């Protein structure tokens, strides 16, 4: 009963409702402008909501997240440029539809299906999170440590091509997170005797640098690319169309939630898997896949929005973010004095239910804004990059400065921005860095707790891992990810595959 009241908090305060609305609106447009990403928007905005109360801040960020995941599909359909990685699969059939002059229809169906997907994701979050959090109370420190390692590895291996580069990025993040005085022993770590480093590096500076500055620098390469004008007709889809694709969307939503809920995997992988699923189960698509099949549009769009709710499950119950955006959300919760993890559900269940309520509202706003305002939308998307890019730089600087009123943070941000720029160019994923920075403390604390409780004995530590089914599962998962990247795996696979063929 309390839960229902907490969900309804959002409706009792119009100010919060408006903030969710503004957030969703901004998220859709930011997600849709090529070159502006949700990750960037959320990271820059967190610094501005720093001084706010926790409820308004969360309202705004939830809105941006939800809107941004959806907004990425717009440019995928209209320009064949996914506004976010989660919209990569959307472009495969969405753009061919736009080329046939069916852009309006494609956007309409995408919006309604995103709404359904989002709704299912949130419902699963509301039902599953309390259970997961009860279960998480039985976790030992070593389980948290393994889970953190698993999360970083998964982000490194699944979201991008090269696992080695992902591992490097994750380890780098953990090292950045360790800079400063050790909270337990007060020993200096990676300070190089600089006083300025003793307090550590502000994770906001790292984040805005990596996602704001480096991205804007990257966009300087595209400054002369002209915006493409598209004609958009009727967008509200007919009831019949929706009913026709509802069964498929229910299936792909479940894929989305499950994939989203796995630590380290987010909307992008969910969308690609859903697309693959749709391809397998649809016997007679409206058109061949890749040439504008409606099924190829419905599947990834439901899945990536369902993954939003899914991604909140590990984030809220375990304190382990699912992807870069949830990593940033966790950072925001930390800043506002909340501690995501199983205790959050026990100490502050209201906060959890409030977030569920905010997500629900953001989903409704997404439907409303998605089906209206298409005219303003085309105007905003056509805004020249030559003006947007300098503004992003400006906002990044303001954001980095605002958190601690410190010019040092601005320099850190610039440094990480330039470093991130090179990482982007050479194919190093940035997500694991942020995940590493956020999880560094958790990993360090839990490792030390675990090993001290085993009296500093590695043998006993591994005995503990092997005898607990949960730790063993996590441990095997970590090992499997490693093995899957070595030549041993490829050889074993080709042998197995070879046998299957013969």
């Amino acid at each position: 009963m309390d839960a229902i009241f907490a969900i309804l908090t959002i409706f009792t305060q119009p100010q919060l409702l408006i903030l969710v609305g503004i957030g969703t609106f901004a998220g859709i447009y930011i997600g849709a402008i090529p070159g502006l990403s949700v990750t960037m928007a959320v990271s820059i905005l967190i610094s501005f909501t720093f001084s706010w109360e926790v409820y308004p801040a969360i309202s705004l960020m939830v809105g941006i997240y939800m809107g941004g995941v959806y907004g990425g599909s717009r440019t995928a359909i209209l320009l064949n440029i996914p506004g976010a990685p989660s919209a990569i699969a959307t472009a495969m059939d969405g753009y061919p539809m736009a080329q046939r002059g069916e852009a309006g229809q494609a956007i309409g169906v995408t919006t309604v299906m995103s709404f359904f997907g989002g709704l299912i994701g949130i419902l699963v979050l509301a039902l599953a999170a309390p259970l997961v959090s009860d279960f998480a109370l039985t976790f030992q420190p070593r389980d948290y440590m393994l889970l953190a390692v698993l999360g970083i590895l998964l982000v490194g291996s699944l979201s991008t091509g090269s696992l080695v580069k992902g591992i490097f990025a994750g380890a780098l993040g953990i090292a950045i997170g360790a800079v400063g005085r050790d909270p337990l022993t007060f020993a200096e770590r990676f300070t190089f005797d600089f006083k300025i480093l003793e307090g550590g590096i502000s994770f906001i500076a790292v984040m805005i640098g990596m996602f704001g500055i480096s991205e804007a620098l990257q966009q300087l390469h595209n400054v002369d690319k002209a915006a493409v004008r598209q004609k958009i007709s009727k967008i509200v889809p007919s009831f019949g169309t929706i009913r026709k694709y509802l069964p498929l969307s229910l299936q792909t939503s479940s894929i989305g939630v499950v994939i989203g809920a796995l630590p380290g995997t987010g909307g992008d992988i969910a969308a690609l898997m859903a697309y693959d699923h749709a391809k397998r189960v649809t016997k007679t698509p409206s058109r061949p896949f890749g040439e504008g099949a409606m099924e190829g549009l419905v599947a990834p769009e439901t899945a990536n929005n369902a993954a939003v709710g899914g991604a909140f499950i590990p984030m809220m119950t375990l304190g382990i973010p699912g992807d870069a955006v949830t990593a940033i959300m966790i950072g925001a919760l930390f800043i506002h004095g909340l501690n995501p993890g199983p205790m959050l559900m026990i100490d502050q269940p209201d906060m959890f239910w409030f977030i569920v309520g905010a997500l629900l509202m953001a989903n409704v706003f997404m439907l409303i804004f998605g089906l209206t305002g298409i005219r303003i939308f085309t105007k905003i998307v056509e805004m020249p990059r030559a003006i947007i890019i300098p503004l992003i730089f400006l906002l990044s600087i303001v954001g980095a400065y605002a958190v601690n009123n410190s010019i040092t943070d601005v320099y850190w941000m610039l440094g990480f921005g330039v470093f991130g720029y090179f990482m982007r160019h050479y194919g190093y994923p940035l997500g694991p860095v942020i995940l590493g920075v956020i999880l560094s403390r958790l990993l360090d604390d839990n490792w030390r707790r675990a090993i001290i409780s085993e009296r500093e004995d590695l043998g006993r530590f591994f005995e503990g891992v092997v005898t607990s089914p949960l730790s063993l599962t996590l441990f095997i998962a970590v090992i499997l990810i490693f093995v899957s990247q070595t030549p041993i795996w490829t050889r074993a696979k080709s042998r197995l595959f070879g046998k299957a063929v013969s």
Partner: protein
Amino acid sequence: MDPEFRGDADHHDGTSDAAPGGYVNQRRPGELGFAIFLTLASLYLLYDAYNISGFQALSAPGAIPMATTFVMAISAVIIVLRTAPLPRVRSETFRKDILPVLVIAFIGLLIGFGILLKPLGFLPTALLFLTLSIKLLTRKTWPYSLGVSVGSLVIIWIVFRVVFTVLLPAGIVPEAEFLQLLRNLANGGA
């Protein structure tokens, strides 16, 4: 669109987020140098991590830093070994595709922004930065860049200073006095 394709797509069409660039079977100009730099940096960090507490205890403050920098060093070496034998991307040059003059110019502008922010104050510095960079990017007239800059700066200032109440260095502009004047006007009118 091939999901495994990580080549030129994100480099030229503006696909955003942390989707990395790079080619699967070729190396871009400077890629090997970057990998070697990362290896050396990781080794130095490993040495530094060892100095935190050495092999004192498994729960020592230096344990996790040593483990992570060790992982960094190993993976960086593997990256170097994997990158070195790859053929170079023929169509790209370091000066044109990785670090063009424009990017260097902007890094310079940003550093300038940081240096001037405290002494000059946010508003003049931001105006200078916006005008210069919009002029640089649009190649339109000075009045145009100045106009766009002033317009956007007013909006940003209202949103962040007044709505978000973010404190920014005032520098030479009597910002607080101006805000107070506005408040007085508003109160007087009410």
